[in-house]
């Protein structure tokens, strides 16, 4: 499934439903940047290692966070 063009609203729903993990979404976005940004040059400072760490942390925290305000990649 291609997630890179989904809305944050739909991503949050997919994460809550367990259809995808934050780590998978993050890896997909990083792959798109590495593939396509050479021609666009939108991302001037990459922070991929910390993004992957934050995604894994979000995946670990999700069951506990289900009732919170958790819309973004969570």
């Amino acid at each position, binding site marked *: 499934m291609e997630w*890179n*063009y*989904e*809305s*944050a*609203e739909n*991503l949050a729903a997919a994460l809550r439903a367990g259809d995808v993990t*934050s780590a998978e*979404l*993050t890896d997909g*976005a*990083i792959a*798109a*940047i590495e593939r*396509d*940004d050479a*021609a*666009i*040059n*939108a*991302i*001037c*400072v*990459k*922070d*991929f290692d*910390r*993004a992957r760490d*934050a*995604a894994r942390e*979000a995946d670990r925290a999700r069951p506990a*966070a289900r009732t919170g*305000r*958790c*819309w*973004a*990649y*969570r």
Partner: protein
Amino acid sequence: MTVKESYDIAGLPTTWGMPQYRDFMPAEDALQVSRLKAAGAVVLGKTNVPVGLQDIQSFNPLHGTTNNPWDHSRTSGGSSGGSAAALASGFGALSIGSDLAGSLRTPAHFCGIYSHKPSLGLVASRGMVPPPGPALPAELDLAVAGPMARTARDLALLLDVMAGPDPLTHGVAYRLELPPARHERLADFRVLVVEDHPYIPTGAAVRAGVQRTADALAAGGARVDRHSPLLPDLAESAELYRLFLFSGSVARFPVDELAQLRSRAAELSPDDRSLQAAVLRGMLLSHGDWMTANQRRELVRHQWRQLFAEYDAVVCPITPTPAFPHDHQPDPFKRVLDVDGTGYPYFDQLVWAGLPTMPGLPATAVPTGRSTEGLPVGVQLIGPMFEDRTPLKLAELLERETGGFQRRT
């Protein structure tokens, strides 16, 4: 998601595209970055900007030029041009930018995505400051931080995370309570559509975008007017905006030739109401002049309050044309914007962005489809002060009619 380069993120440099600050490392996350992380956002990186955020294209000596995803020979817009290009390219679902001269809205218009310029003062800006800082909880004039996304509803979700006073200042005493949108159905909206400006013509591609929006509103049953005596004088608004914009710009980024500017200003006729004269006067504005201009601004704000008693939103262009070809002429006063074959001074295209910025009104940039050349065309929906949810809801309702963000295939 991504974050505009101009926001502090601990562990990454904040340069605003200025080579002398290539190693400037802020100690803390900007307040907005903290709020995003607390809400669970994963930050992929920072997005490109023009030098000092002082342009509506995004290129600088440190990070090069951001291209428009729809046509690489054209600009993505600026100053939040990296963020808009990232969203149009599928790099993250959300981004945050800022807007002083259309910097949220122009890149959205050029790249076919959504952005929202919040009401002045609604979104705390601490940690969005030119290096070398310091990151103070200052109340800015004109400039705002705001959300960018591929859907209108995502803008509203992101604004909910961003909005609210800085806990160091107004947050001590004030709690945020934004009113809901005035209406839930297109048929209940009362909208004024404006497409002509006294200082610069609107090109055919943007006119067509305004028309598509007006048609969608009318098809949905909204009340659509094309003229109203309640609209504040556009020339007065453009002149005031110039004074504030260039006075602030020179205060932040001093110019070397003040004596020369003074002698040129002394030669201006008092009757010269051109935008070029307003630039010069703005650069030399004294504090007393600023107070006088600010009083004129309060009158315009009062006129807008009266307008918004009769209307819920004003639809108008963001700039007169879709994305233009890269133009790196070092002196922006020598650049020329081509509007359907006629050249106009580059900065004159800012008049539409300045219309809500000068009084501090919220404005949502929405895609309306593409030009005959295949370039995205956006318009802005200006709303009543602190009623940000009203233009955001209108953007959401229009999205169903006009198709919203289109992925480039």
